[in-house]
C-alpha cells in the first residue's frame, strides 16, 4: 500500500515538473519571438527613418547649390546649405565611426571647424554611400546586422560637386 502511494507521489511530481517545464518553455519562446520582432522592426525602422530623413533633406534643398557631395575632414559628406536667421549654415551628413551623423556648421559665427567625431548620431550604420546619375541620387545604408536599404531621390536642379 505504501509503495502505491509512493508511485502516486512520484507521478504527481513528474506531472508537476512537466507543467513547470512547459510553462517555462512557453514563456521563453514568447520572449524570444517578441524580442526578435521588436529588434528587427526597430533596426529596419531606424534605418529607413534615417534614409527618409536624408531623402527629405534632398527634397528640401532643391536649389542649385543646395546640396553637394564633398570631402571634408577626411570623410565623404553630403553638404546641405541653407540660411538660418539670416546666417549661412551648412548641415553635413556623413558616416563616421559606425554611425550616420549630422553636423551643423554656421561659418559666420566662427568657432571651430568641422570635427567628424562631434556630429550628432542619427543611426548606427556600417556602410553609407550616396551616388549620383544625372539628377537621380541613390542613398545606400547598411547596418551591422546586415539590414540594408537603398532610396533614390530625383532633384530637378542640376548641381556640381
Amino acid at each position, binding site marked *: 500500500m505504501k509503495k502505491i502511494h509512493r508511485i502516486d507521489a512520484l507521478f504527481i511530481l513528474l506531472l508537476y515538473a512537466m507543467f513547470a517545464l512547459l510553462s517555462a518553455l512557453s514563456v521563453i519562446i*514568447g520572449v524570444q519571438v517578441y524580442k526578435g*520582432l521588436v529588434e528587427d522592426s526597430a533596426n529596419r525602422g531606424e534605418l529607413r527613418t534615417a534614409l527618409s530623413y536624408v531623402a527629405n533633406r534632398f527634397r528640401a534643398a532643391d536649389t542649385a547649390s543646395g546640396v553637394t557631395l564633398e570631402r571634408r575632414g577626411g570623410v565623404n559628406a553630403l553638404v546641405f546649405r541653407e540660411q538660418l536667421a539670416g546666417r549661412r549654415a551648412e548641415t553635413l551628413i556623413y558616416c563616421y565611426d559606425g554611425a550616420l551623423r549630422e553636423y551643423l556648421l554656421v561659418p559666420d559665427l566662427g568657432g571651430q571647424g568641422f570635427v567628424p567625431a562631434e556630429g550628432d548620431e542619427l543611426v548606427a550604420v556600417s556602410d553609407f554611400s550616396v551616388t549620383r546619375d544625372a539628377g537621380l541620387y541613390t542613398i545606400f545604408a547598411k547596418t551591422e546586422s546586415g539590414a540594408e536599404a537603398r532610396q533614390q531621390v*530625383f532633384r530637378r536642379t542640376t548641381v556640381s560637386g
Partner: protein
Amino acid sequence: MKKSGSAIFLMEFIVVILSFSLSVTITLQLFVSAYQKGERSEEISVALLHAQNIAEQIKAFGSDALTYGGWVKEHTADGTRRFQLVFDDGFTAKIVFEKFSASRLFGVVRVYPPGADSGGGADEALCSLNLSRYVPKDTGGGL
C-alpha cells in the same frame, strides 16, 4: 466509496494540464501569427521602397528608365504597355501603362513578394503606386 486525496489531486492536475495545453496552443498560434505579420510588414516596407525608387527613376528619366536596368517589356494584345523587373532580393515589380497620351504618361507600378506568381494580379501585389508624368511631345516617351 472514498477516493484518496492523491487521486483527486491527480485528476485536478490533469485538468490543469489540459487547460494549459489549450492555452499554449492558442499562444503559439498567436506567436506564429505575430511573426508572419512582422514578416509581411517588412515585405510591404521593402516593396514600398522599391515602388518609390521606380517612381523617382521615371520622374528622372521618363520611360527611358525602363530601357536599362533589367526591365523586360511584355507584349500584350490589348495595346497596354507592360514592363517587369525582378530585383536581386527576389521582389518583382510590374509597370502597366494603362493610358498613354501624347503629352502624359499614366501608369501603375505594382510590387510583388519573392516567389509570387509572375502573372499575379493586383490583389497579390504588396503595394501599388500610380505614376503620372508629363512627357513633352518631342521626346515621345519611347515606349
